[in-house]
């Protein structure tokens, strides 16, 4: 009996509350995981664009954060697909998208763009770290009394070289050139990737809030904003941890005399954060301008759907949109960065607020877009499941979102062992 009752709970019923006239089949079908999906994809694209500022446009001062953000972008990559898989009602069939892509579907095209992008990031990463793989593999080969871990590492790095053992100056210059080319191709692909995430929403003509050609562009801009903000925030946290380790002489600081001192780390952090936050502000201006333009345009043209949209935007979701997204997530951090006397701490807090603002933007688009009925005569409220009582409320609840959010950091920890994000080039160290 209980089993039968459980079957009767339809997807979305657990978290949707209906008010006034809502069509019987309408529920909030796209919940927190679909909020996480463009958010995480945006972080990937944004982190890559930040790394490209150095690789393509040769902003030399961003060298360290560029390498860091490239590795971080790679650890964010698998997580971009994770929310989609967690959201699917038939997750084991997710691969069907790649096997039988239906090219009129934006999601199917997204899969292809995503795979292309993943290949570009992996290739760029390989060019950046190839010399490191070779030297590490050779060092391990020469080492006497190897343990099991060293043997494994030697094998791993030997495989990662892909048979390209030449680390002459010419070969490395070729790597550098190829890396620049890959980064240059990567920028439009990264924008395309996130533009496509926006297109998935913007092309749904049945939804009055999503249906705008501006959606892909708005998504690209806010993606770059969120990616840069997360890189700054995480970079500061990692540098603080490294400073702590340097002071206490922990890990490599105990045995490696060439390891950077706490003062050097502080100096590097200050410089990188200051320059990066300038780029963050430029992209913030573009993102906010487009979002406000979209809102003004809807209000000015006042098409049939405006009545219900106005009620959602100006009344029901007012706090979420104007207070949390625009106020706390855009205006306040922008002021914090523009006002004189900007320092690392203030910028870091501003970046955390910017990330919150972009998350709220995703929330307001995805959940806000489903807050009104297709009948234009009723409303739906989304109650995020907090305590999970079955797989569905776990996957599409708070803990599902937290799982997605923490995964890139765990992946970064392990990836950093293969692609050291803070590796100093020998040439640089000599200067």
């Amino acid at each position, binding site marked *: 009996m209980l089993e039968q009752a459980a079957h009767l709970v339809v997807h979305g019923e657990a978290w949707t509350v209906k*008010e006034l006239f809502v069509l*019987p089949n309408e529920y909030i079908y796209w919940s927190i995981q679909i909020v996480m999906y463009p958010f995480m994809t945006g972080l990937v694209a944004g982190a890559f664009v930040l790394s490209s500022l150095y690789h393509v446009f040769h902003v030399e001062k961003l060298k360290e954060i560029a390498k860091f953000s490239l590795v971080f972008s790679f650890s964010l990559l698998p997580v971009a697909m994770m929310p989609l898989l967690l959201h*699917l*009602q038939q997750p084991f069939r997710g691969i069907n998208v790649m096997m039988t892509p239906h090219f009129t579907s934006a999601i199917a095209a997204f899969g292809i763009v995503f795979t292309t992008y993943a290949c570009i990031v992996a290739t760029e990463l390989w060019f950046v770290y190839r010399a490191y793989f070779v030297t590490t593999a050779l060092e391990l080969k020469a080492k006497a009394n190897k343990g099991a871990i060293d043997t494994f590492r030697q094998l791993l790095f030997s495989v990662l070289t892909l048979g390209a053992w030449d680390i002459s100056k010419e070969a490395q210059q070729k790597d550098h050139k190829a890396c620049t080319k890959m980064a240059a191709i990567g920028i439009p692909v990264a924008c395309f990737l996130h533009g496509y995430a926006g297109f998935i929403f913007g092309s749904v003509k*049945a939804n009055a809030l999503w249906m705008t050609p501006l959606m892909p562009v708005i998504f690209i801009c806010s993606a770059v904003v969120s990616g840069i903000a997360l890189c700054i925030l995480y970079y500061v946290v990692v540098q603080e941890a490294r400073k702590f380790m340097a002071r206490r002489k922990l890990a490599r600081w105990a045995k490696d005399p060439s390891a950077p001192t706490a003062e050097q780390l502080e100096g590097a952090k200050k410089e990188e954060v200051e320059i990066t936050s300038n780029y963050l502000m430029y992209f913030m201006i573009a993102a906010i301008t487009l979002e406000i333009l979209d809102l003004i345009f809807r209000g000015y043209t006042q098409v049939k759907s405006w009545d219900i949209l106005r009620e959602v935007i100006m009344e029901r979701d007012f706090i979420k949109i104007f207070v949390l997204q625009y106020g706390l997530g855009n205006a306040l951090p922008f002021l914090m960065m523009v006002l004189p006397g900007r320092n690392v701490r203030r910028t870091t807090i501003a970046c955390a607020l910017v990330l919150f603002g972009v998350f709220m933007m995703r929330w307001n688009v995805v959940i806000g877009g489903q807050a009104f009925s297709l009948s234009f005569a009723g409303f739906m409220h989304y109650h995020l499941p907090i305590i999970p009582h079955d797989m569905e409320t776990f996957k599409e609840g708070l803990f599902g979102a937290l799982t997605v959010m923490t995964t890139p950091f765990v992946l970064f920890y392990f990836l950093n062992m293969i692609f050291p994000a803070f590796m100093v080039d020998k040439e640089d160290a000599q200067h």
Partner: protein
Amino acid sequence: MKRRDFLKKTIMVVAGASVPLSALDLVDPKEVLAANPDIHWAFLIDTHKCVGCGFCVKACKTENDIPFDAKVTRTWVERYVYTKDDRRYVDSPDGALYGYTESRIDLGQGNFKEIDPANVGKAFFVPKLCNHCETPPCTQVCPVGATYKTDDGVVLVDRSWCIGCGYCIMACPYGARFFHPVEKVADKCTFCYHRITKGLETACVNACPFGAREMCNIRDINEPTTKIIMNQRVGVLKDEFGTRPQAFYIGLAQEVR
């Protein structure tokens, strides 16, 4: 002729002939039939005849194995009530599965509105179902092609291939789609394809005691229902989306969305 010359010339002739031959298209009779099928299913709803009994909703759920108490349905009936002071009330409790036995309007969240009968200006019922659009947005967006349109104009879902992303549910402007609570895949009205292809009526048409629902082959101009669609003033829902619905309504009020 030497053997070498013979071979050379043969190759030249074959190569030369293959170019114009490749332009020829072999005709497959099935393809021709698909391009001009004899059958194209359409639905006709006479809103003047519907009394909101909900028999159609019950019949549909029973026929198509949609759990009876699950709060989703392949077809439903909406009630519209306009008061003389120019207020509009709409409801469809449980999709009208149990019919409209109460006069009060369901406002959701356990709230109801009692309307003074003397204040009622006009009131009517509108049955709804999948419109089996000519250009369906649901088939356009399906990332794996699990939802498709048959040659005779019916939009179906392949339950063994649907990944359950919900994109088609979002794309449908009519709210006709939902997730099947047991199968965990997208579901919707199939025009009772298993019945109509055997010459039977759909379950809802069969169950309607007032003849408010009719089905027809719109390519057969001699069918009485087709004649109504062709000759009378019929409307479709949400025409502005360009989906070209194949469910036609007699007496469609402009306020129905």
